[in-house]
């Protein structure tokens, strides 16, 4: 077990800078997920921790030791790949024990470790099979088993669930979480799927264009995103961004969206945004769940308005509604019985207690 530290890590490929100076502290036992769109540098970062890529500049430390020039096999890490990367000519047991056999572990020790990992992953009856006789989910279990038997300081996962179908992905996600709760090995997990990131991580690292946008617990990222990118990336359906500006009306602060629609800010929000220039071009960030049908007795800070719906998506427990405000498509979540119809009007309410205000130019959440 060990902590992992990245200090100003840079990766440059000839012309392109894939990773542009990353600082990251991963505590012992922690499960950290690197998430971001493709090409954001998350996989490169993971591969640099693994030692599969050289770092151009900066330091990587595992367990306090700088490992910049340490080959992968001496870093005491184990990696699970997206395409499993099982050795096709070896049985499951041979696959899992390959690393231990290379290190000349005693046979009894190897056997007990395989047994333990196989029991943990529920693949005991598969140990004598070849990879081609296994399903995708079973192969991924074996790949995890191969990592577990090594008992490394750090687990590295490179999009391990991307090749599985949706149902299996959910199941394996839980499986991975269970394994981590048992072995408590420090884990760095890369995915482009924000749901995976939210559900698995102790802390999520959101990356974009080779930089870290924000680091935080899943709830912090969801409720207090630092930038427009994080706000839009985390959460599904994504947060709405509606062009707006602030205006003063009879001593109170309003957020004006259209000529006809403006909402008075709740006192806490008004105080927070007092210093924002009134002519600044802003974006109102609202999660779909904060745009619901209007209730008879609204709470303070919840303001009603009328909208004409473009599209509705019944999801069963809720109905997603889409309408247009100031040229922006806006998504809301309403009760299935709220009477939403495509093309029809609906009285909605916006919960301004949970609003975000962003600077349109810089994308920073104010």
């Amino acid at each position, binding site marked *: 077990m060990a902590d992992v530290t990245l200090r100003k890590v840079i990766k440059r490929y000839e012309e392109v800078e894939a990773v542009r100076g990353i600082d990251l502290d991963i505590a012992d036992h922690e499960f950290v997920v690197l998430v971001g769109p493709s090409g954001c540098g998350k996989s490169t970062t993971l591969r640099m921790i693994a030692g*599969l890529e050289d770092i151009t500049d900066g330091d990587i430390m595992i367990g306090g030791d700088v490992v910049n020039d340490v080959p992968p096999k001496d870093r005491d*890490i184990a990696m699970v*790949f997206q395409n499993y990367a099982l*050795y096709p000519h070896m049985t499951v047991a041979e696959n899992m024990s390959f690393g231990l056999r290379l290190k000349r572990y005693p046979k009894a020790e190897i056997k007990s470790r395989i047994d333990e990992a196989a029991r943990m992953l529920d693949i005991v009856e598969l140990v004598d099979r070849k990879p081609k006789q296994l399903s995708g989910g079973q192969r991924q279990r074996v790949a995890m088993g191969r990592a577990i038997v090594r008992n490394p300081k750090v687990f590295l996962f490179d999009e391990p669930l991307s*090749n599985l179908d949706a149902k299996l992905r959910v199941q394996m996600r839980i499986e991975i979480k269970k394994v981590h709760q048992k072995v408590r090995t420090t884990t760095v997990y890369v995915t482009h799927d924000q749901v995976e990131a939210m559900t698995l991580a102790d802390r999520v690292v959101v990356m974009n264009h080779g930089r870290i946008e924000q680091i935080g617990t899943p709830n912090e990222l969801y409720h207090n995103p630092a930038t427009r990118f994080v706000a839009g990336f985390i959460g599904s359906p994504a947060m709405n961004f509606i062009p707006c500006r602030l205006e003063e009306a009879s001593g109170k602060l309003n957020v004006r969206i259209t000529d006809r629609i403006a909402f008075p800010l709740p006192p806490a929000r008004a105080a927070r945004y007092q210093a924002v220039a009134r002519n600044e071009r802003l974006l109102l960030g609202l999660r779909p769940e904060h745009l619901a049908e209007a209730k008879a007795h609204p709470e303070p800070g919840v303001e009603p308005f009328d909208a004409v719906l473009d599209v509705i998506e019944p999801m069963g427990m809720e109905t997603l509604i889409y309408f247009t405000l100031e040229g922006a498509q806006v998504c809301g979540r309403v009760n299935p019985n709220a009477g939403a119809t495509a093309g029809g009007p609906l009285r909605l309410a916006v919960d301004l207690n949970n609003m975000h205000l962003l600077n349109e130019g810089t994308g920073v959440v104010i």
Partner: protein
Amino acid sequence: MASTLTIDKAAPTRSVKYGSMSRDRTWALRWSYFFLVLFAIFSLVPPLYMLITSLKSSAEISAATNPWWVFHPTLENYVQLLTSNQFLTFFRNSAFVSILVVTITMLISVPAAFALARMRFWGSATLATGVFLTYLIPDSLLFLPLFKMFAVFHDVTGIQLIGKWYVLVVVYPTLTVPFCTWIMIGYFASIPKELDEAAVIDGASWFQTLTRIFIPVALPGLIAATIFAFTVSWAQFLYPLVFTTSTDQLVLPVGIITTLVKGDVFNWGQIMTGALLGAAPPLIVYAFLMDYYIAGLTAGATKG
């Protein structure tokens, strides 16, 4: 929406035949069979003719009877060849040369292909192309400089290679190594990159990655290369003709021609028998390795 999908059943049916998948397939199969049978006949007639002729006596061969039928079958040619020391010497020389060449070729081209396919070093791509280009140089162009080289080698070291069967062990790899390396580069390159990364993380050295992962996984390619190297060194004609002369140093293809054709007298029965016997080992090697030569050994390594 539904209305646009309705088919107008009243419209006159056109006499256009829509391509049905199964009909296309049937025709494709018929043509395939036609050409395959044609090809099989084309390539099997010469060996058949050799077999027929090898079972005839010299008298029957020169008699003006139906050349496609044996009236008085005899194993005389086989007995004579198999009891002739000369023929057995040719056979032994051929076997030594081929086995040594295959071994040397594999020892060189497998590590070379691994290095060129996986260890990205400066100029590796150019080198890989270069390896293939050397294969394109015809042996008829190469034997003169090679001859000269061996002559100089003799002058300098005093070791005479020309005229000995083992000179072929030195010469043949110039033909086999480039091609086998090229084949193996292809096979190694098709192995997913993650497989060697997993091995590296598991603690395998480059050599262990090669011997314990790459060679077993690329076994079909290895076998294809082995068959190729064996066939080339077994059937090569020009080099042994140039580099070896004395009867005890000859290999089969040259031996048969030089000893069984005496002036303008062609001992057809024995030539055919010798050629047929000579063709047997590659056939046996091929049949034996065919069992292992199955594609899809990488199945299960990664998704798909």
